[in-house]
Every structure is written in C-alpha cells, then in structure tokens.
C-alpha cells in the first residue's frame, strides 16, 4: 500500500515538474539547450523511477511472503512527531519577533519539561544557559548574526 502511495506521489511530482518547466520563458541565445532541457530529462527520470516502482510492486505481489518489508501503518506514538513539528513551527514564527535567545529558551523549556520530566532545575538551567551562552558566543565571538528580537542586547 505504501509503495502505491509513493508511486502516485511520484507521478504527481512528475506532472507538476513538467508543468513548471513549461512555464519557464525561453530566450535561448548561444545556448542550444536552454534552461529547460535538463529539467525535461529529469522529468523523464521521474517517470522512469515510477516505472521501476511499478515493476517492484508487481514483483512483490507475485511472492507475498515478504509482506512486512515496507508497510507503514500509523502508530499511536507518531502524534509526537506531529506535536513537535507544530511546536517547532511556532518557534520559527516567533524566532525573529521575540529574538533567538528568548524564543529558544522557551522552546527548549517546553520540550525538556515533557521529554525529561520531573527534573525542573536541570531543565530550566539547560534551557536558559544554552540560549544565553550560545547567543553571546555566536554573536560576540564569532560574529554570526542571530535575531536579537525584543531583548536589549
């Protein structure tokens, strides 16, 4: 089942890619191929990989003994991944408005509070110290720009 979904996604991707390639305006001066030729080759490559995938699906159907190879069923634990993604998205949203130090400290505090439960002192110290030390080390010592945000330094 998983492999069939991959097959459909591959065909969709190939379709979108061919369409997007056709949108590139052509002004071919001195370059016999232009910016579209290589992408067209890649579109064909996507179709070839779809065909290979189809061949593998048909082959595996003939001998169903290796059924457990790549079946992905939704597990109860996978909500964790959705939750972390959402929390990380929120972190990115406030990254510039709040600044690196504040947003990172809050981000770490919540994650460690859940995944390293009960050890409050350790979690608070790690989150705050990591955010502060990394901010000053990178901005002051290495000259790397990290969003300052609302804090005055």
């Amino acid at each position, binding site marked *: 089942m998983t492999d069939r979904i991959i097959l459909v996604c*591959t065909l969709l991707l190939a379709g979108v890619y061919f369409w997007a390639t056709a949108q590139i305006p052509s002004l071919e001066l001195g370059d016999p191929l232009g910016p579209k030729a290589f992408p067209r080759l890649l579109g064909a490559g996507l179709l070839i990989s779809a065909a290979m*995938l189809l061949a593998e699906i048909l082959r595996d159907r003939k001998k169903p003994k290796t059924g457990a190879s*790549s079946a992905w069923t939704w597990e109860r634990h996978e909500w*964790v991944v959705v939750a972390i993604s959402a929390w990380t998205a929120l972190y990115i949203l406030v990254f510039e408005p709040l600044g690196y130090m504040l947003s990172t400290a809050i981000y770490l505090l919540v994650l460690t509070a859940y995944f390293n439960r009960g050890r409050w002192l350790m979690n608070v110290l790690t989150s705050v110290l990591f955010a502060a030390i990394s901010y000053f080390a990178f901005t002051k010592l290495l000259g790397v720009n990290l969003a300052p945000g609302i804090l005055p330094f």
Partner: protein
Amino acid sequence: METFTHIINGFAVCLQPINLWYTFLGVLMGTIIGVLPGIGPSAGIALLIPITYGMNPTSALIMMAGIYYGAKYGGSTTAILIRTPGEAASVMTSIDGYEMAKKGRAGAALAVSAIGSFIAGTIGVVGLTLFAVPLTSIALKFGPAEYFTLMLFAMTAVSTLTGNSPAKGVLATIIGLVIATIGIDLQSGQARYTMGIPEFQDGVGFVVVVVGLFAMAEVFRGLEDMVKGTAPAAMKITGKLWLTREEWRRSIGPIWRGGIIGFVIGVLPGAGGTIASIMSYTTEKRISKHPEEFGHGAIEGVAGPESANNSDTAGALVPLLTLGVPGGGATAVMLGAFIMYGVQPGPLLFQSRPDLVWGLIDSMYVGNVMLLILNLPLVGLFVRLLYIPQGILYPLIVAISAIGAYAINGSTVDLWLILFFGIVGYVFGKVDIPVAPLVLSLVLGGIMEQSFRQAMTISGGNVKVFYGSTITVILLVMSVISVLLPFIIPKLRALGSSGDPS
C-alpha cells in the same frame, strides 16, 4: 619526486600550530558526534559551514575532514556500550561488541576498536597518499562529457546500492537533482521553480537539506522512541582497557584485512562504510575456525568491521580529491564545503594548491594519532556523554541546527526548510526511501547540468559526445552494471549459497 616534496610540504602545513589546533578540534567534535546518537558527520559538517565562513579554507577543511573520520571512532563506543550504532557504519560492531560488553570485556572491545581504527585509518591514508597522484593524471583527460558520465556512474551506484529498493534509490536521486534545479539558471539568467520566494533565487542550500534530513529527522525518530519506551540504556565499561595476548593474536589479521577491504570499498562509489563493515564481518566469519562464536562476542567481529569502516573514510576521499566527484552522502557534504570555500577539488587542485591538498591529507595521519589518544585512554570521558538525558539532548540538537541554518542568510526561510526536510527525512525513513542518494545528487546537480550543457554545446547538440570516447563508454558500461547489480547479486547468491551466512 615533485610529489614527494609536496607530501613533505604538506606536513609543514598541517604541523603549524593553528592547523594542529583545528585538527584537534575536528577529531574531538567528530568523536563527540560519533558517540552521540542523533547528529551524524554529515549534519555536523553541514552545520559548521556557515559558522566557519571566512576562515582560512585549509584550516576549515582540515577540521571538517577531522569530523568525518573522527565520527567513525566515536560511533563504535556507542555501538559497544548501548548496542545502538552512534554512527550508521558501526552497525556490525554493535553485534559482537555489545556481546563482549555483556561478558565483561567492554574494555577489550573498546581497545580493539580504537587500535583497529588507528591501524586501518592509517592504512587508508597511506592508500590515499599513494593513489591520489596517478588518478589525477587520468582525471586531467576528462572533458565535460566524461565528467557527466562519471557523475552518472556515481549516482547510479549510490542509488542502487544504498537501501533495499533500487526504484526508491533512483527516485531519491532524481528528487535531489530536481531540488538542485531550483534557483537562477547560471547560463541563461532565467529564474526556475522559485515559486515567487526571493530566497529561492539562490537555490535551496544543501546545508539546510542535509541538516533537515539527517539531524532534524533523527530528532523526530529519537523522541518518538523515547515515548515508545524503546530508548536504550548505557552499560558501564568493564574490564581493563587493553587486550590479552590471545585477543591480540586473534585481532591482528582482521584489522589488516578490514583495513584493505575498507579502503577498496571506499574508493568505489555507492558502497560506503556500512557495506565495507558488513563485508569485513562476513569475510572474518567465513575464514574463522570458530564461526559459531560470531554473534556471541567474537573479537574478530569487532576488530574487522571497525577497521573497515575507518579505512573506508580515507578511500572515499580519493575520488573526491582527485576527480572532484564524491561517491556517497558524507563526501558529497564535504564537496559542498569545498565549494563554499571557493575551492574546487579535482586534478587541477593538486597543481594549483598542493599546500591545501597535501596539508589536508597529511593532517589525517596526525588526526588518527590524536584519535587513538582520545578514544583509548580518554574514552571514559566520552562515555559520560551517553549519560546525558536524551530528553535534553534532542531538543538541543534542534536549537543548534537553528543557529547553523539562520547563520547562512539570516532568514527564517532556512528554518522552515529545516523543518520541512526534517519531516521529509522522517517520512522517507518510514517508507524506506534512502536519503544519501538525494544529498549526493543535490550537491552534484548544478555541476552535472553545467557539464551536460557544455558537452552538448561543444558537440553542437549531438548526443554522440556521451559515448564517443573510451572513458565515457567505460563509465556508461559501469553505470549499467551498477543498475543491474542488485538483480544479479541475489541470483549469484542462490547459485553459490553453500557457505553463505545470510
């Protein structure tokens, strides 16, 4: 003779205090990255690129190479003590290494890993030193068509030899190439597939893709395992950190054989450290007088694979340095680092910057000595890293990735890309699509398209240019063989399966 002078001068470069310091930093970070699950050498090197921007390229590349080969040393510590490879290629070490630890011989297992890694790592660097120059003289004959077919060979080999399904490997390769076409086309100045996002005009940086696919996806997997309750616990080091006379006698053969197997596999594109260590393991099991001990704490099963995956790293640098074409995911990231510093590896680099090339190669002799010290007498320090609660470690990896990504352009677009590719990497892991081919083709995509178009321009649009010379024909035949290999190997196994362990 001229080469010999360059090799000696390389030592003068790598023994400068500043470069010794960066070698040390590199191998130290490599060991830490190898020990810690969650962040591998590819993501580690990628994260350092934006931070070290503006540094002297020789020192920066010496440090990054240190991470690359140092991670293999650290990976074995995790494999032996918690049965989880800290680094993918240590997977074979985790079988017999963990069994040895259970029997109270963890000290011996760690010692033989460090010593084997040192001997084999040095064998690998000697091989690199000897083979580099002869290969560059072949590479000088390469034109755009030869480069195009060489990259085609590297990609087909990687896509069909990593993972279980050649179709998914090819799919991953093409997706990488597709991502590489995003941005302004260098020849026509035409913007392609930018979706109206100005940041995409410079293309999707490989740093964020690598960090997303390797670090962020690993954070998802690690935290999921914690919730599942399958996260492993670390064992204590037991027994003296040295070998008995009997253990020495049994290890020395596997170390030499593993060192040679690893180097040869490393030079070839596609296979990489994991396959090198599996080949060494099966070889040792086949020629052993006590094959029944394998899987129950045979020291040969630690010595061989651990040596193989260390000499593999030096082997893998041969095509990268001499041809400028990497043969796997981690060396592709190294190529990305070279390009970011404005250094194009390949035969011409040996002529224009012998100080850089030989300084880098010679630093690996020094780095291996440092790694032996770090991983033998000082291994106890690194083992403590395994006691860091994973609930703290994984969130910190996200924050470190955020620093590295934001440092590139000071734009949150790169942060969104890390999250996006983290989810992609997690899903790909679940559905068994390998990510190493994607990284390789993403890094090579731009160069590949350029050489394709140059070759076509030279030939006036005639595709014959791609099968017109001996070199291109050989490379095309090798590409076809690498595509067919996954179909041929099972048939060969079925024919001669008498002594086959699997």
